[in-house]
């Protein structure tokens, strides 16, 4: 009787779990399927193999600037990650391991900028960028990406690096910068990876800032291109969905390979407490 009861309970939980899975992913399955449909019969919902084609993907690459959108998105996200990791780990190193006047105060000052929500400062940021003459440039898209949050994370990680190791390197004649590259960075790899994921996904999915900072077509990124398509090609579902798929894939592929790292990275901002 116990066994039957347990079996029954398992069936119920399995059903609920399947429900969760279906609700979580059916919009993406719909997106994938529709992206393989041609325009004329998009809404017949016949997903037999001969009705599916790669036509929409061929078409989307013929769209003006589309390769440029992909390049912009990749370039901005990659450069954003490199810049963020570089400036945040350097500063984190100084704040964690160096004695200098104002260490705590400057750190606190930087951390305070974390309460400023990015959505709220979009207009003044636009004005500043405009004043610098940087509108429609990669600088405008990349330079504002690093946040105090990255410094916070890197400082936290570098604090745990044992002082003995650094002292040993110093006795071997290493300077600060060499210690940073040879001793500190290899030991905080996992934090760097988490910060990279956090920054990459943020930059890749970023919408409001590129929307404001880039008015020229050739500077737009993939999310903007997708958003524009809904007005330009209102009837062409397949094409819009193909664009959505291209937008969706890079973070998704990374996620498939590094699930737990991804969850850690994406919820970083929540864990800071």
């Amino acid at each position, binding site marked *: 009787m116990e066994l039957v009861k347990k079996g029954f309970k398992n069936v119920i939980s399995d059903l609920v779990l399947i429900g969760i899975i279906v609700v979580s992913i059916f919009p993406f399955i719909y997106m994938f399927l529709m992206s393989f449909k041609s325009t004329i019969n998009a809404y017949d919902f016949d997903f037999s193999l001969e009705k599916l084609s790669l036509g929409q993907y061929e078409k989307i690459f013929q769209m003006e600037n589309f390769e440029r959108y992909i390049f912009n998105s990749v370039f901005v996200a990659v450069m954003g990650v490199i810049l963020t990791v570089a400036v945040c780990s350097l500063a984190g190193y100084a704040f964690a391991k160096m004695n200098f006047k104002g260490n705590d105060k400057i750190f606190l000052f930087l951390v305070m900028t974390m309460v400023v929500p990015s959505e709220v400062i979009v207009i003044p940021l636009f004005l500043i960028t405009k004043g610098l003459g940087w509108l429609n440039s990669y600088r405008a898209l990349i330079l504002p990406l690093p946040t105090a949050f990255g410094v916070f994370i890197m400082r936290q990680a570098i604090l745990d690096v044992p002082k003995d190791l650094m002292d040993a390197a110093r006795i071997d004649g290493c300077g600060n910068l060499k210690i940073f590259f040879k001793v500190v960075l290899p030991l905080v790899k996992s934090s760097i990876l988490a910060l990279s994921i956090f920054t990459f996904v943020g930059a890749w999915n970023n919408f409001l800032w590129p929307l404001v900072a880039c008015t020229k077509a050739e500077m737009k990124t993939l999310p903007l291109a997708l958003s524009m398509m809904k007005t330009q090609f209102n009837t062409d579902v397949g094409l819009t969905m193909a664009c959505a798929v291209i937008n969706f894939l890079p973070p998704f592929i990374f996620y498939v390979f590094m699930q737990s790292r991804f969850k850690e990275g994406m*919820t970083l901002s929540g864990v800071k407490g």
Partner: protein
Amino acid sequence: MENKKGGAGKLAPYCYIAPITLILVTFVIGSVAVSVALGFTKYNIMTEPVFRGIDNYSKLMSDSKFVKALKNTLELMLLIVPLQTVLSIILSVFLVANRKRFLGKLANSMIFIPVICSPAVVGVVWRELLNGKFPVIEKFFGLFGIEPSMLLGDAKTALITVGMVAVWKWMGYYVVIYSSGLLGISNTYYEAAKVDGADRIRCFFSVTLPLLKPTIILGVFLSVTNSLQCFDLIFNLTGGGPNNASTTLVVYSYSKCFSAGAAGYAMAISNILFVVILAVAMLQRNMMRREASEI
């Protein structure tokens, strides 16, 4: 090496922190300063700003669109936060209980996919799904007597629909946060409760919830600040319409600046939102501090 500590050695730390400090001062501190200053001016980007004192702020109160946007922002928050919190706690408890089973693991990874997906994609795909041409969706909503094609187009339901999509998109995020909170609760508490004869429901309310309180405070505040700033989803789902029914403060501020060219006024609007978010952040700090001192 000691003698290196003079001159250049003393400056070294400042060189390490200079790049990020420069970035944050220019873009974040600079933006806040510009926003506060120009919030007091009439400014259309083309011509010089004209100082008008608190004109913008006193105008806000009689601007019916602003009042509506403020109302929508708060409504959206009140819609998202309780639903998001309750649902994600229940799901976390369920997923943690099933975490060792294959389907449990699968569900745990699938529920996070909407989180990594760009809000633009989520907005565009859901708009497609809700356009009334997809029979599966039609049938599903038909069960509840709802016409899906009207959800985003009707002023009565547009904001609610946006809220539901937001809850769906961020569910995995909160599940991760609550799951880690749940996994941090020591098993001994449950064993003790079991000895006292508590059943599962009693366990949940008397053991799980109280011990999860710090995580819940964190989760609720994250949900509050995130929902107050919602822009991308709204822009891609409804564009703020119909008839401003889903226009929130961020959306209104954006359109005031970039469609109506009233940058000074737009910044006054976002300054109000900033003050609200700041107040929420302070409240959170106080509550978490009190929580920490209790333990």
